[in-house]
């Protein structure tokens, strides 16, 4: 029967999501555990260190603001790589990865925006200004929302994947803009002092909690991302089986 021949040709592909599920099942508990440990250490460090003589207590906001901001960009970068995977290799997992990363990215971007705002009020005296860094992050947030909406708007998942992939790649131009906006336009916002070519320009006192928190946030992201990918695979599997069931039922009639 034609169906079977097709099924066989697909079999090598089939191994893929299944293997991913097996891997995920083993990795998730470990990742979750290490994330929790890192957060505990990070939180302890960030409240144990001294306040800055200039910024006072508010420097502690940095320990979540900066990791969240980094992750919002990293998440988009991961989506872009996945998008290339979708378009070039047509790898089914690439699409799942891009799709499930979008809500996480939106969450981290929101976190960066809100904590930035909360920091801005005491430091700059205003919640919000339309400077380059802030605006480009805001645009990143809009883009995450737009991509989520776009994915919902197309009901054929493989088509949705390819279309959003194109858009993700086009939107990637925003990432360098975020990163370098503080250098290209002189703005209120702090310029890079950690991720610099000539080494960090921050007191190690602040650097330590920052790094621990950054690692914690990154691990959190990966844990959630793998979980979300697993959910998405399950969702598609359920949809495929439902369809099959519906067809079987209508055939027996």
């Amino acid at each position: 029967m034609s169906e079977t021949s097709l099924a066989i040709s697909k079999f090598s592909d089939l191994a893929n999501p299944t293997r991913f599920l097996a891997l995920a099942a083993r990795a998730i508990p470990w990742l979750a555990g290490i994330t929790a440990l890192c957060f505990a250490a990070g939180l302890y460090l960030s409240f144990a260190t001294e306040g800055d003589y200039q910024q006072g207590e508010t420097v502690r906001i940095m320990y979540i603001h900066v990791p969240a901001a980094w992750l919002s960009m990293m998440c988009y970068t991961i989506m872009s790589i996945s998008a290339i995977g979708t378009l070039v290799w047509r790898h089914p997992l690439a699409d799942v990865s891009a799709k499930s990363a979008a809500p996480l990215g939106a969450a981290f971007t929101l976190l960066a925006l809100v904590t930035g705002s909360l920091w801005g009020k005491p430091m700059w005296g205003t919640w919000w200004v339309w400077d380059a860094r802030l605006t480009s992050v805001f645009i990143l947030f809009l883009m995450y929302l737009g991509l989520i909406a776009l994915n919902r708007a197309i009901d054929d998942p493989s088509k949705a994947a390819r279309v959003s992939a194109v858009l993700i790649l086009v939107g990637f131009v925003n990432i360098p803009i975020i990163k370098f906006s503080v250098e290209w336009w002189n703005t209120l916002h702090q310029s890079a002092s950690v991720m610099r070519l000539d080494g960090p320009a921050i007191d190690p006192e602040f650097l330590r909690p920052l790094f621990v928190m950054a690692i914690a946030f990154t691990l959190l992201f990966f844990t959630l991302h793998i979980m979300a990918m697993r959910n998405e695979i399950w969702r598609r599997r359920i949809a495929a089986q439902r369809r099959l069931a519906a067809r079987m039922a209508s055939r027996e009639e």
Partner: protein
Amino acid sequence: MTHAFYVYASYGFAALVTVAVTLWTWADGRARRRELASLEAAGIRRRSARTRDGE
């Protein structure tokens, strides 16, 4: 307002967002797993599982 307010608000909000996202992902996973189980119970199996049964 004191600076502590901003600090705690930030940490509070961060906790809120991370916990919400984590819970949502987890709950989603549970719902999916339950759906899979109910499908399985209804006798619809994965193709690979079926072939293993020697169908």
